[in-house]
């Protein structure tokens, strides 16, 4: 049995014992992964849901044209101005015209808004995840592989970033920075605080890979560090990174929604789920469907990516570093 070679320095770093012992041969693992993912009912459903949501986000303009309403078009006929703009009819004004009902006060089509909301929410979540993964992996590899001073500096930086009260900081930055592209700002702000988690996982992996035979062998053959990193190290940590990436997405979706919920998110009339829920909270009693529709979308998205991430982690990184 392999013993712990590199003592875990950071809290939460499970020792990366017994990882893959040889460079991963291409192709085969992917097929296995796919088979196992598809084989399990839970992860299959999650995968389908996630793919559907991404499709919805991609085809939002098309879908809303199909529904006949743009997300910003008002429909004064669908609401009763005397009752504070409550939708006419039961179930939040669900009708052949408005598939999921309408927003109170404005009469905007909920279906159109919720599919466009998917676009914003997923775009920000994916972009922020990308930032986090790229920065985190780079920092983690550098710290783990080079060690020494690089490691010290990067680890300090990770500690510092993790000590930031991130939500409070994000709210503050979003609410005071006005004249910028909100989507970009939000992506960056969310991304800035996420990288240390993945960096620690990668660092631990890289640390254990550094002295593996195949890495040593490559070094002995005269490969430069860049080549070793990209050819030997990166492929071997891709499993945990992919699993971790998938597990990051639901958190990013939630964070985006939370910021939008608190009113510091994207600019109107652009819809986003969190913002829609924030506006709908007050109506939970008088127009419950208005509250439920975006909540369900948000719930399904977070759930699907969590389940998917769990499954991928079980497959790709069975014992691996959990953040």
């Amino acid at each position, binding site marked *: 049995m392999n013993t712990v070679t590199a003592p875990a320095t950071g809290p939460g770093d499970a020792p990366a014992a017994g990882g893959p012992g040889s460079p991963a041969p291409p192709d085969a693992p992917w097929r296995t992964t796919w088979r196992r993912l598809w084989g399990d009912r839970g992860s299959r459903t999650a995968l389908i849901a996630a793919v559907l949501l991404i499709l919805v986000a991609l085809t939002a303009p098309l879908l809303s044209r199909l529904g006949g309403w743009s997300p*910003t*078009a*008002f429909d*004064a006929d669908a*609401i009763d*101005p*005397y*009752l*504070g*703009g*409550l939708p006419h009819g039961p179930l939040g004004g669900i009708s052949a015209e408005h598939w999921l009902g309408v927003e*109170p*006060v*404005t009469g905007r089509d909920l279906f159109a808004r919720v599919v466009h909301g998917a676009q914003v929410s997923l775009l920000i979540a994916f972009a922020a995840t990308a930032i986090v993964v790229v920065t985190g992996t780079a920092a983690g590899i550098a710290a783990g592989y080079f060690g020494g001073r690089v490691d010290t500096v990067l680890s300090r930086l990770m500690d510092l970033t993790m000590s930031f009260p991130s939500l409070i900081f994000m709210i503050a930055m979003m*609410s*005071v920075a*006005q004249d910028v592209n909100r989507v970009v700002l939000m992506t960056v702000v969310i991304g800035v605080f996420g990288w240390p988690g993945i960096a620690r996982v990668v660092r631990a992996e890289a640390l254990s890979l550094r002295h593996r035979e195949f890495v040593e062998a490559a070094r002995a053959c005269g490969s430069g560090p860049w080549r070793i990193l990209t050819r030997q190290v990166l492929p071997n940590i891709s499993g945990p990174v992919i699993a971790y990436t998938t597990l990051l997405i639901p958190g990013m979706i939630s964070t985006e929604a939370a910021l939008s919920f608190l*009113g510091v998110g994207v*600019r*109107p*009339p652009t819809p986003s789920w969190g913002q829609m829920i924030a506006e709908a*909270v*007050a*109506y939970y*009693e*008088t*127009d419950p469907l208005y509250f439920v529709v975006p909540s369900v979308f948000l719930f399904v998205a977070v759930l699907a990516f969590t389940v998917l991430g769990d499954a991928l982690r079980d497959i790709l990184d069975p014992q691996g570093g959990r953040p």
Partner: protein
Amino acid sequence: MSRRTRMLSASLSTSLALALLGACTAQGGGDRDPDGRQPGVATGTVIGGTPKRGGTLTVLSNQDFAHLDPARNWVMPTMDFGTRLIYRTLTTFRAEPGKKGSEIVPDLATDLGRSSDGGRTWTFTLKPGLVYEDGTPIRARDIKYNVERSFAPDLAGGPDYAQRYLADTEGYAGPLDGKHLDSIRTPDDRTIVFSLRRPVAEFSYTVTLPTFSPVPASREKGVQYDLRPFSSGPYRVESYARGKKLVLVRNTHWDAATDPVRKAYPDRIVVIQGLKGGQIDDRIIESAGVDASAVEWSDLQPSSVAKVLPKPGIRQRLSAERTGCTDMLALNTSRAPFDDPKLRLAMQYAVDKEAQVTANGGPALNDVATAYLPPSLTGGRAAAPVHDGPATGDVKKAEKLLAEAGRAGGFDTTITVSTGDKTRAEALQQSLSRVGIRLRIETVDPSVYYDTIGDTAGAPDMAISGWCPDYPSAATFLPFVFDGRTIKPKGNQGNVSQFRDKAVERRMDEIAAMADATAANKAWTALDREIQRTSPAVPLLWERKPLLVGDNIAGAFGHPSWTGQFDFAAIGLKDPSRSRG
């Protein structure tokens, strides 16, 4: 929410034109909508009858008071709260619903003030025997002291009428350095004389503001005075945890015999702050336990309207008095596109005011505005519109005007609104798109809203801006909103349109100098129509203030002078014994 409060905040409301007091008929504009569905109780109704003395009145609020310090209190309902409960002013408004509420009566003073020197000098005499909460006498110099405090830079934010009206105040920075104003004289403990830089016919109204209440110099605590104003009114502060809870108890030294206005029914008043708006509505609708003896401080949420209006039993606990403010769409006249009066005129027809009504809570809570001056300043009736046509707008006419201005295909433009007005901006965007005008919406946090639109160089093409008269005189309205000389490069407020018109300014000076209030009022109304023809702003809405009371509340009515907030001088409980939870 806070943006609305802040905006309306700024000033007192009004109900009736000074000159026409008592001369007019019913409140205009229609308290009943065409379907006969009233928003709440009819104007002038006192909810719950006459209160009984005693008990604890609870006030449920979603926010903290901006400032209770009388030198800094210029946020609308807080002025009501402060001057009705904690401090008295030289004169004050009657504690009565409807038009009588905008009449003033002497408070600390024995009369409404005597003017001499053509309205440049005003003399007030204090009633004998007035005392503070510790029994020490209230002296004329204490009122002078508080007026001086309003000049101190660290006590900023209060009404600035003293700065505007008093003579020889150049460079004065408050009494904390030991310097005092010569333009206020206190020959004895009961006499105070104000020397003004120009005649002010309605100065009796000006001294209803909290600036003109007494603060003894010995109690000076600088900015910390905010936390515990020294009481000259019927209640004193027992405890105040900012943003959480304020408890007022009876000031035993207050003598009802000297105070014709304040009824002071409850023994205790507890303000619970920082609650959630919708939950406040739910609690008061249910009226369980202590909540039966509670009133709401902040407006009924639009989402709660459907829980109230269909139920007659609850609806009769809803007050929805006019705020007396006008909500306008200010057009930036300083540059293209709205430096062209033709385009501005087109906007009068392109905007769908009906949609604005809907977006702002519906016709139960808003009327379409037909002029800049609210009905209360134009004889109680809504002025006949200068630009007639349906409230939903006149697309044909707007298109014709656009074509005449050479913009037949519409144009691109921008608006900045605070986050609370997002829906309204979207409604505007929608209605302007009918004539091809493409509107880009910028939302900013309420806290920086006025900084943003007040930066004249970077100001947007349009902004939603409101104004409330400080007391029933158009002199507290039009000169603040359309006088080009008041424009400041930064922190510009009021004249958001950056409207400059020499003729209008000349006319304003002429009217301000008029000694005859009736004539002045007619002249202001005419000037309003004159300005509308060049269209620096589109009048949008006259709002109401929807407020619920618990079912043990009595004596509640929306006071016309406090933008429809309950008059805390007259409110109380039906059955005080039920209020102890």
